[in-house]
């Protein structure tokens, strides 16, 4: 695979809505994908978890679409849909047979323009319950389920907007009111804070006309308020910070996180390749050393969070065998992470080859293409960046990886979260 050549066309409407089109007529399927520039980082004190609760409310109907109709019509059309909330953004997406493009645009535009009119207390109470169930099911009743909450609090200072998790606190969720819904909508769910991407099987001119027809009359909002809190953050944590959790978990697990440059930085590609070198695939360094050779871990996971605000996070975790000492597991994980400072060229090549083919395979789906294009438009004002992703990865050198390891993966930049099974201490 020498070069990606995904076609990309950009437009915008007078109200500030950004548009990205990318045609591919192989299969009669079209994806509609919206990214709003709002996420958990925009939440103020006492309102944590609200961006996610709001995402749920976006499915409760809008002025011209009754509750549940959105799901009903898309499913009836043979489509799929969902949404997700993250630190920096919230996305909404449908994939439908291509003759149903207009339906998806109608539904998305109606909630972008006229969602608040359809809100009432009963819907809010209902979705509050649903979100609390989600929190209990995925965080509280799930072994290790609360790791991201705990880790964010360790890695980011209290005043930083990444200090709290996307799911937020249940007290804050309980305190949310209909007025909060209305004001959040008015502040953030405005065309000048959104991107619409269409990918797949569509007629270009017809799609542009439909976008104008459905989204054109939505009033623009005010400029988006600056992020709350104190955004200043040192590139390094400065020490090893730790939390030890005795919990109802089956096996010991050590989760380590490091501050790394933000996604917008040119250095992020180095972190991405490092992450793959360390933990992607069975020939990765951590799998080979910890799982296969030393056999101190049952499994390893690494991840580089693509976050925008000040500092992002690189994460590595190792799950030990029954009865293993968390201290030994931590020492082994630290040693192998630091060993990245002696990474070899063939390891870098493997990491790049694998990252590359995973990226290309992801692009087989129009929905994935749309999601990436929306992201690059919203984050970088440059959806074409998708076509140069491979170049950025390939440009990463072994020297950069080694320098990254020395600078970022040492004990002066480390958050350690340890889960120890109850009753085995």
């Amino acid at each position: 695979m020498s070069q990606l050549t995904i076609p990309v066309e950009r437009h915008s409407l007078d109200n500030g809505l950004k548009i990205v089109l990318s045609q591919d007529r192989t299969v009669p399927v079209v994806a509609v994908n919206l990214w709003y520039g709002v996420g958990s980082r925009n939440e103020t004190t006492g309102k944590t978890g609200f961006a996610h609760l709001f995402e749920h409310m976006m499915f409760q109907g809008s002025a011209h679409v009754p509750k549940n109709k959105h799901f009903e019509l898309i499913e009836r059309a043979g489509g799929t849909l969902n949404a997700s909330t993250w630190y920096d953004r919230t996305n909404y997406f449908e994939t439908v047979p291509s003759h149903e493009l207009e339906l998806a645009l109608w539904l998305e535009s109606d909630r972008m323009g006229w969602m608040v009119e359809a809100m009432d207390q009963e819907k809010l109470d209902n979705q509050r319950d649903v979100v609390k169930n989600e929190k209990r099911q995925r965080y509280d009743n799930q072994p290790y389920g609360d790791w991201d909450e705990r880790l964010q609090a360790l890695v980011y200072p209290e005043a930083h907007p990444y200090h709290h998790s996307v799911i937020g606190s249940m007290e804050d969720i309980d305190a949310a009111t209909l007025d909060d819904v209305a004001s959040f909508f008015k502040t953030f769910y405005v065309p000048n804070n959104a991107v619409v991407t269409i990918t797949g099987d569509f007629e270009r001119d017809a799609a542009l006309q439909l976008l104008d027809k459905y989204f054109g009359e939505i009033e623009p909002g005010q400029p988006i308020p600056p992020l709350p809190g104190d955004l200043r953050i040192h590139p390094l944590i400065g020490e090893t910070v730790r939390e030890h959790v005795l919990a109802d978990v089956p096996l010991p697990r050590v989760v380590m996180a490091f501050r790394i440059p933000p996604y917008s930085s040119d250095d992020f590609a180095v972190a991405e390749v490092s992450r793959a070198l360390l933990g992607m695939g069975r020939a990765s360094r951590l799998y080979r050393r910890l799982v296969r050779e030393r056999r101190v871990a049952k499994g390893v996971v690494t991840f580089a969070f693509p976050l925008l605000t000040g500092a992002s996070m690189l994460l590595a975790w190792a799950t030990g065998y029954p009865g293993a000492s968390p201290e030994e597991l931590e020492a082994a994980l630290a040693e192998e992470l630091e060993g990245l400072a002696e990474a070899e060229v063939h390891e870098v090549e493997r990491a790049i080859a694998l990252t590359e083919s995973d990226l290309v395979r992801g692009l087989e789906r129009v929905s994935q293409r749309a999601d990436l294009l929306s992201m690059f438009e919203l984050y970088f004002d440059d959806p074409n960046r998708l076509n140069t992703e491979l170049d950025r990865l390939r440009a990463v050198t072994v020297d950069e990886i080694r320098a990254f390891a020395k600078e970022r993966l040492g004990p002066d930049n480390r958050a350690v979260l340890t889960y120890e099974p109850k009753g085995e201490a």
Partner: protein
Amino acid sequence: MSPLDRSRQPKSGSIRKFDFPDVERRTLSNGLDLRVCKLSRLPVVSTNLFFRAGESQLVESRAGLAVLTGDALEGGTQKRSGTELAEALEGIGARLGVTTGWEGTSVSMSCLTDRLEQALTLLAEAVLEPAFPEDEVDRAREQQLAAIRQRAMDPAALASMEASRRYFVAGIPYARPQDGSEESIAPVKRELLSDYAESCYRPEGGGLIVAGDLDPDEIEIMANHRLAAWTGAPPAVEDFQVDPVTRERRVWVVHREGSVQSEVRIGHVGTDRATPDYFSLSVGNLLFGGSFTSRLNLNLREENGFTYGIRSRFGFRSRPGPFSVSTSVGTDVTAPAVGEIVKELVQLVEGGPTEEEVAAARDYAAGVFGLQLETAGQIASRISQLVVYGLPDDYYHTYRDRLRAVTTDEVAAAMSVHIRPQEVQVVVVGDAGEIVAPLESLDLGPVEVVSAP
């Protein structure tokens, strides 16, 4: 002033016809069924090698052996260590994965098209010449034992395991977890794995599926070159009869101290993949609990706020698999949630679905089928299903038409045969102290608290 009337739902455009892509079928010199689907999309290819080394062909004392053998394939070959095998694959950006199920073992691989020849060589080497070195086998076994232990503390996994035990009569494979138990896995040594692979990793009854931008003739040559020496059939196995444990409705509570949420499974023995009711049941399940706008989800989530989500499902296997409703609900609403689910089951069977519900579910199923044919991997795994379940070659070409032909009466009839609310086993993993009394007052049947296995 806008001329646009927003309250009017837009009309659909004109449908672009789309068929399941053509599949070329060949037979390799060793008898293996080769199916190639030529796609002119991105330069990626997905392959799937399936053979009949499955968990349902094992006796209980060997439960989990097929899974362990499949996982231990990454331990290396006669020519390469495990790490060397992984490096060779990943160095060319290829992904190899082994999935072992009830019916057999499936080795799937995906790579960029220009790497297929190298990747196929490695795939064949991994399956035909596994070395099962002792230390790698030990590791794979310890990992599987740890996973078995991990499952016992994960309420969702625990609930599913308990449900299988309560739905299916003891001793048959479906009553147990696919990866076995501590007793069956702990004593396994490398010899057992190599003997198992030697006897059961055989091409007869299996198939090789390839989807991507390639020429079937070339694939045939490539595959023959690498697989011709691989011959024979796995040993014949005794069939088993799938029976329920009981036809009496019962409630089983697995106590988990301090649980903030209850995991719920409600169901019984369902039916097999070959059932003539397959399409009616698929449509019926969508409207009952297989979609967001299903009866169960609208009731339990959108009306009552009891749960984050709820699903029902028929597990169609070569023999009758489970019909099961699964959800996770707050501790305090466990009994009302169970009551609502049973009520919905009764209403479905007694009242049947409406014309409108059936029409919506049919449209959803027929439409979404096309959405699931975007990637080479999706297409390869669809074609694999034809091999696994012995379905006719034109199956997917008539698939949508058969879905669209399903009538409301057929759905009603099929659901009332295959769903029997009076026979369901209700399994709840949660805090017994909080939920037993309210569950008893539902009066569904005897409530028994059992300890986790």
